């Protein structure tokens, strides 16, 4: 493998010193989950969970999108690269889409994406998809609990995805 050899040689001979950038110290592992929630159902579901004073882990960072169909697969890939430990996409249940079929198109897309990322070696627990309606505050809370505990079980992304993540790796 020529590239490898040349890259290694380049590395050995020409070490560009790369200043380590200060990072927030992490004592106990709390993963960061980026959640893309559709405006009409899942975001409202999250709201309901809050209003109902349901407890769920604080690891989730919500991005409100108009529809699960609006979520470009690149969002998921980019979130993982930029350091998210897990990504959740959630929309309306099939049949309930505000735009009639946005979530059904999304379903095909994410069936392919999840299978593809899994195949490349990104643990399936890191990329999850679900349906939560506006009335399912409880379901939302237990969904977040499940996703966070799944990702926690995998441990910090020192494993398979380390090379991918830009924050720490000097690659």
């Amino acid at each position, binding site marked *: *493998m*020529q*590239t*490898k*050899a*040349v890259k*290694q*040689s*380049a590395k*050995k*001979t*020409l*070490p*560009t*010193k*790369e*200043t380590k*950038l*200060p*990072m927030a110290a992490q004592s106990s592992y709390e993963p960061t989950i980026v959640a893309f929630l559709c405006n009409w159902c899942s975001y409202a579901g999250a709201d309901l969970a809050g209003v109902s004073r349901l407890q769920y882990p604080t690891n989730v960072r919500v991005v409100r999108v108009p529809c699960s169909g609006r979520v470009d697969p690149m969002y998921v890939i980019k979130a993982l690269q930029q350091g998210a430990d897990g990504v959740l996409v959630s929309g309306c249940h099939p049949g309930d889409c505000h735009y009639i079929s946005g979530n059904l198109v999304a379903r095909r897309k994410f069936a392919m994406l999840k299978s593809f990322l899994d195949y490349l070696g990104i643990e399936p627990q890191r990329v999850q998809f679900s349906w939560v309606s506006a009335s399912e505050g409880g379901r939302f809370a237990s969904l977040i609990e499940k996703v966070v505990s799944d990702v926690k079980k995998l441990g910090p992304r020192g494993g398979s995805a380390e090379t991918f993540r*830009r*924050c720490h790796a000097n690659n």
Partner: protein
Amino acid sequence: MRKQAIDTLKLKKLIAAMGKDGEVFGPVAGEAGEAVLGPLTDKTPAVLNFGNFKLPLKRVFFPQCEVLSTAFAGTVTEEKPEHKKIVLFGIRTCDAKAMDHLDRVFLSQDAIDPYYSRRREDTLVISMACTAPASSACFCLSTGAGPSNRAGADAVAFNLGKAVVFESVTERGDAFLTKHKTLFRQPTAAELEGVKRQEAATHKKLSQQSLSDAPKLLKKQPDPGRWAEVSATCLSCGACTYLCPTCHCFDFQEESVGDGSRKLRVHDACMFESFTREASGHNPRADKSKRMQQRVMHKFSYAPENYNELFCVGCGRCIVNCPSAIDIRETIAKVTL
């Protein structure tokens, strides 16, 4: 210019001795059996009979991606080029010649590139003359480089089978021969004759067609329609430029890392549509025929005007690796017809 010889069996000793001057790199067997540029050690001896590396030598001095500065909290820190002594042994003469070309760009007196110049200073280049073309796409004679040209190297080696004859080119090369004089001996008359014979024999195996007229012909500004014709099957990828030993276009990229950022210098290619696209949306080279024209003209017309040298060494990498098998020699012939 001095000549010294060494028995091939002693080459290992020489490489070990060179290791004291810096890390020694040369052609070693890669995983798939092809020769790659790697560290020469006891366990990985130099492969002396090889075509050429897939990747051009420029990447050692001008890596595809390097960090120029780091910014954090409003302060920009310069990443200074570091000193690291290297010896390159047994690389191809066309690649060395290409470094001579790049020197003219990166070491031009009005603005010296500190990164390139540091690496160039720290590297001793010992090339090895070719004995046969690496592929049917080799055309080094046509560009004036030739299989045993001396430019860009500190010393050139000739592999005669039982012995290797070294010829110094620069003062540094001279110093290298002096430093290891205990390992070298004076070449015999037969060996000197052998070098000459080898050079002549290799010349015969190469295409004799000369491209020295190209700058004159291209200066006449070929018809744009011809450029469109020759670039019709071009896919606008960067395989030709990224693998070219003399192409040196680059770009700066900013990379955000955590709360800070890094400024990178990365290779870029004039064949990409985005290369000259301006913020206003205007693109002076929006058409691929214009980009092909730029690449060919830069190598065969502008560079000769500025540096009196064709910026092509005839290594043939662009021909072999082009997905559409576009041949730069044919392109020039067609547009200047």
